[in-house]
């Protein structure tokens, strides 16, 4: 029992980028365990997706035809059946919204320990040692899984994507789906937000976060945006408050942006937000908290009060 089973994610016929990162991480882990990397593609056009997973380090790709799109009941049954057939040491998935919707159920069904949102992992004598973020990414903790097999979800953006083209056998895995246990029905998809502005097109984006405090304080940012012809984006809490339309939300559940400059003002740098700004050429961050995780990814860090720094910047550029 030393193999790794990686369950990839796809949506509307497209493999998601996190799946290629999963293969990279899975290949390294399989090497460390001296085992094989098995990859599962469930539902959709599984065979076409399998072609894109033919990468170095992958030993076998298993396609499971059930379901047109993601359905958590189907995924739980399919992963359970494949697990029973392969008996892997570790089940890996990306840490995504869909993973949150089925992976905990897989762990319960198989009575396996589960560690989610892992940013690093290492095989040790004690077990599989994982690293996770705590307290809104201000602290890292090691969590060692002392029992194997186990289930682990990996934070997107933390591993290099698997490269190369291998010659990987693709095997169709069939199991008997228990239709009576499928209690959920996916009815469709919709785009969120009405879209009053396209933040993905901006060269200079000012991202505003919770540090702004009150809605009336936004004038500080609006003044700077007016002087610099910048576009204003927002972190999730401000959109939740109804201060901005969803179309201005940057992050995992909002838009992914790649401006020349992203000026993060009063944004702590929660992982969900950081996921959306990694493509920026330059990140400048202004925050009072010296431990704010945004500083870990910023090119230029200003530990200071935005209400002192931003009006001064506006005046200098006026």
């Amino acid at each position, binding site marked *: 029992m030393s193999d790794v089973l990686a369950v990839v994610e796809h*949506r509307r016929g497209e493999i998601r980028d996190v799946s290629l990162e999963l293969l990279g991480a899975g290949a390294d882990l399989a090497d460390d365990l001296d085992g094989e990397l098995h990859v599962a593609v469930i539902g959709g056009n599984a065979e076409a997706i399998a072609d894109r997973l033919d990468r170095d380090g992958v030993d076998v790709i298993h396609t499971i035809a059930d379901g047109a799109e993601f359905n958590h009941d189907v995924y739980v049954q399919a992963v359970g059946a494949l697990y029973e057939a392969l008996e892997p040491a570790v089940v890996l998935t990306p*840490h995504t*919204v*869909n993973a949150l*919707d*089925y*992976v*905990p*159920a897989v*762990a*319960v069904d198989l009575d396996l*320990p*589960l*560690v*989610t*949102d892992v940013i690093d992992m290492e095989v040790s004598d004690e077990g599989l040692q994982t690293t*996770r*973020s705590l*307290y*809104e990414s*201000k*602290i*890292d*903790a090691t*969590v060692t*899984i002392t029992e194997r097999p*186990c289930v682990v979800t990996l934070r997107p953006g933390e591993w290099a994507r698997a490269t190369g083209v291998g010659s990987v056998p693709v095997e169709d895995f069939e199991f008997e789906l228990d239709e009576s246990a499928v*209690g*959920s*029905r*996916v*009815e469709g*998809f*919709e*785009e*969120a937000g009405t879209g009053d502005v396209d933040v993905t097109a901006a*060269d*200079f984006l000012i991202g505003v976060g919770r540090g702004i405090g009150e809605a009336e304080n936004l004038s500080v940012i609006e003044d700077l945006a007016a002087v*610099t012809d*910048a576009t204003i984006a927002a972190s999730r809490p401000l959109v939740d408050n109804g201060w901005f339309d969803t179309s201005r939300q940057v992050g995992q*559940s909002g*838009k*992914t942006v790649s*401006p020349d*400059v992203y*000026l993060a003002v009063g944004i702590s740098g929660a992982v969900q937000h950081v996921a959306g700004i990694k493509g920026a*050429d*330059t990140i*400048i961050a202004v925050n009072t908290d010296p*431990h704010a995780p945004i*500083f*870990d990814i*910023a*090119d*230029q860090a*200003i530990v200071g009060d935005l209400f*002192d720094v931003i009006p*001064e*910047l506006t005046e*200098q550029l006026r």
Partner: protein
Amino acid sequence: MKILVTFAEVAAVADNFEIEDGAVADRYLEYDLNEWDEYALEAAVSLREEGIAEEVVTVTIGPERSADTIRMALAKGADRAIRIWDDDLRGDPLEDVSTRAALMAPVVEAEAPTLVLSGVQAADDGYGSTGVSLARTLGWQWGAVVNDFTLDREADSVRVRRELEGGIEEITTLSLPAVLTIQTGINDPRYASLRGLQEAQAQEIDVQSPAELGVWADRLEPRLERGELTEPPSRGDTEYVEGDPPEQATAIADRLLEAGVVQE
């Protein structure tokens, strides 16, 4: 119908803290009601106010300290509160999400709600798995990362809108009873009134131990061990700008000019 809300007391570290012997000392930690769970609670209380639900009960796993947070939930409109605790739960047992689900499942079975609402994740450890683990332990349906839902009592179902990455939402129908994990932004959580807080002080919190719930010690044997805490490694090439606000503003302006997004 009855709605049960699971919520966690979460810890946040102060702006200035130190890691001592691989841990954060308690003096640097501030405890509060988990933000995601506040939205779950508001959804439940709103349904009661609309006459759709009759009762809202909360369940929390936490030491005596968490009574303050539980009273905050009562002040925000919960009718009753259950707290699960035993000193054996200190340390590693709660690191394993299945242990939390095993502790909560008997409470749900005894209360027999139609709906369990839970926050998507806890702000401190961010496992994001308790709600779905609980649903599966109960053999119920579930929906994760829900930012809207509509009950259909005649069809005994709930229609949920799930927030996927990249601004895409999925619409799914689930059979009841179900557990939903609630995303922030689904509503506008109310503040606790002073009167509500005063009344909550007088309310009794039903404390139950794992043994009373029929969850025995072997279920609490940790399979996960929390090790040392460390500060995340910095990328290393971040330029920290010293000086007063005008000097800091000048440094930003220089960067903006250098990048060509503003002109002199």
